[in-house]
């Protein structure tokens, strides 16, 4: 089952994509981690790469950063090879774990990154400020909490002033407060028009922060669209309206709803194209008090990523 809804491709499509994955396959021995992913991401999009553990998210991120080479297919970032884009500072990343030395201070770690990217002294304080860790600059990295270390990785990622920021499960192991602060910082930063791709298995994060959600399962894209579209595609939405004297079969035929349920004066219509259902009800019948509700992303996620009988066939 592959569901596709690329939002606004026609409207803005002409610009060079920030990310262009074409038929990308990555195998580790007998294991296929990524199994033919094609994906274009436009500059300025905030995209969530969502999927269960082992779906191939991290492998995809590694290939975007030039840390792994695809077995087949091509990966381009701003029209360049990933590692070239990284070296030029077009892309940077906040990785899930590791990547820090305990015996550096927070400030020294950022300073070293600045030195490597050939950025001036002033960039150090600025990055620390924007990541919200200017107050712990003198602290040893080994003494920082998980959330502070993550914001340090964020500060390092900000230093080259990248066009594209990639976050791999950025809030794993953070408490609720830390997660909130971290996303606050990212959100503020993204307002400047930076392209952001984040891999996550926290559905609420994808729902709350992404313009576009790409569901990955078993190394393939199973759905792609806005959080709302994906929810609708995956599970449909329900239209409820007050319509006395409704006839079930009649309404089913006219609206194309998948299921129709009548409880007293209320009708419940479940379907993918709820806009059409609502339009019909309001234009052609005496329906009132109309409501459209969707299942949450969690349910969509379960529907899309479950190893259902259908995929076994």
């Amino acid at each position: 089952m592959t569901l596709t809804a690329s939002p606004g491709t026609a409207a803005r499509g002409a610009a060079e994509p920030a990310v262009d994955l074409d038929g990308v396959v990555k195998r580790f021995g007998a294991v296929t981690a990524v199994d033919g992913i094609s994906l274009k991401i436009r500059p300025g999009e905030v995209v969530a790469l969502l999927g269960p553990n082992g779906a191939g998210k991290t492998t995809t991120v590694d290939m975007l950063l030039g840390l792994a080479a695809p077995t087949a297919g091509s990966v381009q970032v701003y029209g360049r090879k990933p590692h070239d884009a990284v070296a030029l500072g077009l892309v940077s990343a906040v990785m899930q774990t590791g990547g820090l030395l305990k015996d550096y201070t927070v400030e020294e770690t950022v300073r070293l990154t600045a030195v490597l990217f050939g950025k001036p002294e002033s960039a150090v304080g600025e990055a620390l400020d924007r990541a919200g860790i200017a107050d712990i600059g003198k602290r040893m990295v080994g003494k920082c909490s998980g959330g502070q270390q993550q914001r340090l990785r964020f500060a390092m990622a900000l230093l080259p002033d990248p066009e594209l920021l990639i976050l791999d499960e950025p809030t794993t192991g953070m408490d609720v407060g830390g997660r909130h602060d971290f996303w606050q910082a990212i959100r503020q930063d993204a307002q400047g028009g930076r392209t952001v791709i984040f891999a996550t298995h926290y559905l609420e994060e994808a729902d709350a922060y992404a313009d576009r959600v790409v569901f990955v399962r078993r190394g393939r894209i199973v759905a792609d669209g806005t959080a709302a579209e994906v929810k609708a595609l995956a599970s449909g939405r329900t239209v409820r309206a007050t319509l006395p004297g409704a006839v079930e079969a009649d309404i089913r035929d006219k609206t194309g709803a998948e299921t129709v349920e009548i409880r007293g004066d209320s009708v419940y219509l479940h379907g993918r194209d709820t806009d059409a259902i609502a339009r019909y009800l309001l234009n052609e019948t005496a329906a009132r008090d109309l409501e459209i509700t969707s299942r949450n992303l969690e349910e969509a996620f379960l529907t899309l990523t479950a190893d259902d009988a259908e995929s076994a066939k």
Partner: protein
Amino acid sequence: MTVLVQRSLPRFGGFTFGMIKLELRRMMRNKRTVIFTLVLPAVFFLLFGTNASAKHETAGGGNVTGYIMVSMAVYGAMLATTSGGAMVSIERAAGWSRQLRLTPLKPVAYIAVKLVLAMIIGAVSVVVTFAVGSASGAKLPVHAWIECALLAWVCALVFAAFGLFMGYLLPSENVMQILGPVLAVLAFAGGLFAPLDTFGHTFATIAKFTPVYGVGQLARYPLTHDGNLWLAVLNVVAWTLIFSIGAMWRFRRDTARV
């Protein structure tokens, strides 16, 4: 709509003095490194080299205290350069090497930084031992003070390569806990702690093929003018090649994998 900032790559693959400065500060923060590379050789020298008989007995143009001082400086330099090279092991274990791959720093520039660092602390270690020596009765001809120190330092490049090789070979967080004893054994076999003629004939012959022997002989040569110079040079060159090839081999594997 994409307005790209003018972007360029840093010069020299990212090799900068700024990085060396920061890395040096970090190394000096590690108490174990400081004790092993700067304090231990000087302490060994004071323990074994400053008794009355060593001060009075002559060795070449100086005294035995001076001879032992040079040996201990070599030991210090090899400890320092090995631990400098072996830093890569800790950095790989911590995922720092991977993080560095997200910067313009070229792997070759990274190795160059590590080598420079290793040689800097190697130099400091030699200077410390020589300073302690000059204050504790070591006697060398004037030219030998300079020549012995330079040779002890330059030849320690063998062990910078050794450290790098081991750093890439052993993905351990505390690689120096393994290498410390290994270096002590090598130093003993190479005649740094006791002259080779105190060994049996067979052992003395084997010892001449171990990597510390050449460095020790060369470093003491300006003082002793003793032994086969070319054999010592051959030993140093051969081991430098072996360790460098080993380091390159592991290094290539490491960068190809990712």
